[in-house]
Structures are given as C-alpha cells and as structure tokens.
C-alpha cells in the first residue's frame, strides 16, 4: 500500500507533489477520555443512533479519513479507520449514516464539489466492500464549503481534505 501511494505521488504533477505533505493532520482533537462518571446509576450516556455514541465507540480520530491533494484513494491508514467504523455499523445494523466528502479551499468550487463526492464514495465503497449494505450509507459532498480548519496553509488544507462519517440522529 505504501508503495502504491508513493507511485501515485510520483505520477502527480510537480505542483501537486509540492503541495502533498504527509497527509494525516497532526493536530487532531484528543480522543474522549473516560473520566470518573459522577452518577453511574442514571443511564444518561449517549444513545445508540447519536453521533456522540458513534464517536465514543470508535474514537473521534476514526470517524474521519484524510486525502492527499486532488486524490481520493483509501490508503492503509484510511482502511484501518473504516474497518473500525465497519465493526460499529455491523454491531448496530439498524443505523443509517452519512459520509460527507470535503475538499480544501485550493480548488475551484465546482470541481471541489465533484471531488468531495468522489471522496465520500471512496469511503462508502470501502465500507460496502467490508459488508455494510450500500443502502444504509448516504453520501453528500460539501466541496470546499465547510472547512474545519480555517487557515490558508498546508496543515489546514490537509485537515479539510476529508471524508467524515456522521450518524443520522
């Protein structure tokens, strides 16, 4: 897989190559820490079907996969995350969910909409390949319209080139 990625990078244009840093953003929010629950008797935790329940179960870092500039391939790191998601959705077969595809701001608007759709579909197709029925997965592209990192630098762009899994609730 690493070889494949490296080959792909070499084939990319020099401009894209220059822009391609190591793709995983370094400043991910920390995973939720299990602190002592003050009232263990009351069942006030997140319910199945909520985004919070999904995030708590798989870890927030596993809810989002990231892509290189202009690319949409699922690499080893992405597939590991999607496998964790797949286990969760196999455990809760009643849940439908959405994969949101996004692009960074350094692309034209319409192309980025199509690119976000392609990324969302890449993540969806991987989940289908590991046994999640396609009719449970909705995709939606936001192109460059909904950035999570607001700077105009490579680190921010890397965080915005993503496919995020959202549980409908």
């Amino acid at each position: 897989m690493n070889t494949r990625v490296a080959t792909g990078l070499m084939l990319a244009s020099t401009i894209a190559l220059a822009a391609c840093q190591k793709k995983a953003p370094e400043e991910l929010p920390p995973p939720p820490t299990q602190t002592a629950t003050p009232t263990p008797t009351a069942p006030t935790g997140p319910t199945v079907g909520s985004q919070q329940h999904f995030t708590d179960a798989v870890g927030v870092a596993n809810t989002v996969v990231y892509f290189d500039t202009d690319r949409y391939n699922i690499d080893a790191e992405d597939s590991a995350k999607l496998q964790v998601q797949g286990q969760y959705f196999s455990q809760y077969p009643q849940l439908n969910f959405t994969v949101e595809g996004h692009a960074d701001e350094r692309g034209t608007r319409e192309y980025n909409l199509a690119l976000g759709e392609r990324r969302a579909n890449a993540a969806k197709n991987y989940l289908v390949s590991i046994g999640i029925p396609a009719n449970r997965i909705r995709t939606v592209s936001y192109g460059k319209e909904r950035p999570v990192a607001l700077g105009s630098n490579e680190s921010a762009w890397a965080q915005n080139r993503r496919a995020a899994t959202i549980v409908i609730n």
Partner: protein
Amino acid sequence: MKKLFIFASALVAAPLAAQNEDLGQPIQEGGEVETVMEAEDSEGLTFTITDETALEDLGIAIPGFATDADVATPANQNGTAALGKELARVITADLRNNGLFKPTGPDALPQPSFPEINAPNWPTWSNRGAEMLVHGYVRARSDNRLTVGCYLYDMALQQQLVREGWIVEPADWRRAAHKCADLVYSRLTGESPFFDSRIAYIAETGPKDNRTKRLAIMDSDGANHRFITTGRSTALTPRYSPDYKKLSYLSYVDGNPRIYVYDIGTGRQTLVTQSDNPTFAPRWSPDGRYILYSMAVNGNTDIYRVPSTGGTPQRLTDAPGIDIGGSYSPDGSRIVFESDRSGGQQCYVMNSDGSNPRRISFFGGRCATPEWSPRGDQIAFTNSSSFNVGVMTPSGGSVRILTRGWQDEAPTWAPNGRIIQFFRTERNSGKAGLWQVDLTGENERRLPTPVDGSDPAWGPILP
C-alpha cells in the same frame, strides 16, 4: 427506529414542497423597453471622430438631462428634473467605473435647457475641454411611463454623432441610462454594448466555517440589488437564462447539492433532473433551449444536456474521472468543459452532442471553469495551479494570464466579450469579492456589492 428510517428516506427524496423553502418573495421584474427613435442619420452619414486623443483620454461632458416639464414621477421623489440629473450621474458612473474615457458628470456642469438638447449651446461646452458632449431629456408620459432621449455630439465637428430614445417603466429608469451609456460607448469604440445587462452571483456573509451563501442579482453596475434566497440553505454557482426569465443554480435546500431552475416570474423552482444523484455546474445554451449540468453517479461526474423545458437528459461525456462545467460556443455548435481524465484538471472542447472531445489546454498549469466568450474568439479559464484567470483561443493558443490575486477563479464574460468578471478570495479570512478586468489585462477593479460576493455570472444584453 422506524422514525429514524423515515427521516433517512426523507433526506434522500425530499418532498417537492421543500424545494421552495429557501426562496424569498418573487421579485417584480420591470417592463419592456421600447426604442422610439432610430438615429435617423445613421444610414449614409457616418461621422468620423475628429479627435486623435486615445479613447481613455477622451473628455466627455455629461450634464443633467433636461425635462420639458418638471412633474412628479414614481422614478424620483423630486420629479423629472431631478431624475434627469440622476440619469446623467448613472451614465457618468458607468463610463468612469469602467475606465472608459474621461467623463465629467452633471454635478460639475451647467444644466442645459430642454430646447438646447437638440441644439447645443456650443460655446458653453467648448470652454470645458470636452471633446464629446452627451445631452438627453426625460419626459413623463400620460401613461405614467418615461421617454428618455440620448444624444452624442462631437464638439470639434459641432455635429450630432448618434441619438436614440426609449420608453421605459418608471422602475426601469436606470436601464435608459445604461442604454445611453451603451450608445455612447458603442459609437465611440465600435464595440458592442454591455451596460444594459444583469449579474447573478452568490452573496456571502458570516465566518469562514459557517458562511451564509445567498443567490442574489443586480444590474451590471451593482444597482437594483436583490436577494433571491433567504440564506437558510447554501446556494452556489448561478446562471441566468439568456432571456433573463430563469436562473439555474445549485442549492442544498433538500440537504443534497442539486441544480434547480428558478422561474423569476412565478418565484417557483424545479429540479433540473429527477434524480437522487447530486448535480452541479449548470450552464445554458446560447439559445436557451438546453441546460448543461454535471451529475455524479457513484462518485464519477459526467456532463449531461437536458431541454430547458424538461425532457430526457442526454449524457455527453463518458470518460472516467470528473467531467464538469461546460460552456457553449456562441453558435451553440461546441462546448468547452473541464476534465481530470488525464490526471489534473484540463480544458477540452467537444461538439455539442458530446462527440469528438479533444484537449485544448497545454500551457503547463491546470485549466478549470472554461467560459466561451460571447464573441467566440476567446475562452476564459481559471489556472487552478496558480489561481489566476486567463484567456486563450478556442484551440488553446495565445494563453494570457490576466489577474494576480491570491485566489482568483470562475471567470464570466461581459455581454460584449471585452470585460471578464471573476471572484477573488483573500488568504486566511476566506472573504471573497467580485472583480473585473479588461480583456487587455488592464483596468482591474472591484465591483462593489453590499456584502461579500462570489460565483458571478454576467448575463447577455437585456431583451
């Protein structure tokens, strides 16, 4: 759990009613503009401009338009005399803001009387260094409409070069001013008119991670600004139909990116195609009979064509990869579009039935958002490697980069193909604005909008 399932279904196939949820009140469009006076001396008698001054240095005096009787009009609360001054101000601003000539407006000039419109008081104007003189009048008609006359005189010849008049609804008084500016511009440059036209664009407010994006329209000078959508849903990439009766644009009103066709007269909109797949990048054919759109199926985006009155869509591209956009040649025979079938974004030309696609861009950068000039001889595009706007010939030659912003994209042409409008995004803040540059690459200027703006789409000359 059943409830969850129903909600999910609703997202995939939203009820028809939801399609109109983001729309504001329908806007009242103005009436017809009737041309009442042909320039009677336009045939056989063509005057040559005697002055050798470069056009941008040509002084033009534009005093207030006269009125035969200062009466009340819905177009101006102070009556037709005040309206006459406003008409001259609009003409002056049109020319000045586009770097055309050296116009002097009514606030710095004496006011001619009504009889002088046909017989200028030459000594009054020859002392002011103007090579050209614009005169005009406004008259309130008994049917409540206005007659506006426009005359262009050559000061050296002391001759009338051209004149024309129009009958307009009071609400359309600015159109008469734009038509006068167009008359002056066309007579002095030999170019086709462009002022009497409108622009659709996306008005943006709010922080970068939560921008409100509304469909809005305005005249070519930014006046008569109106919002079409409320901002509840994100709206993107509008295009006017050639007859200005409809707008196609992308909306997330049902939660998914879809192209809608909004009818300006009725205030209602319909999906460009009945499909659960996302659709992007609407474009009209020059005759208004077809709409191009791009649709993603399983992540693969292709370009389709559908009759604008509805009907069966026809798929025009089938290469793997993202084929998107598409802009017709003025004669409707060819379409320029972008595709990443060769790796990065590049521009291609195909016949309007989708046959014979061939790449035209080989300038070294990436080519996106191509737009065919209304004159047919140029294609504007975004260099999406450097994010500048450029032009090239339809065969991909004579590439010229016209802009130097941090991120410039999405060119659109003035109706006469002499000016390119685009949007410029600022680094970090993400704030965007509408800009214009002449085809020559000169005279870059920002078009004022009430809030930030992006995705401009300049329509043709108004019918």
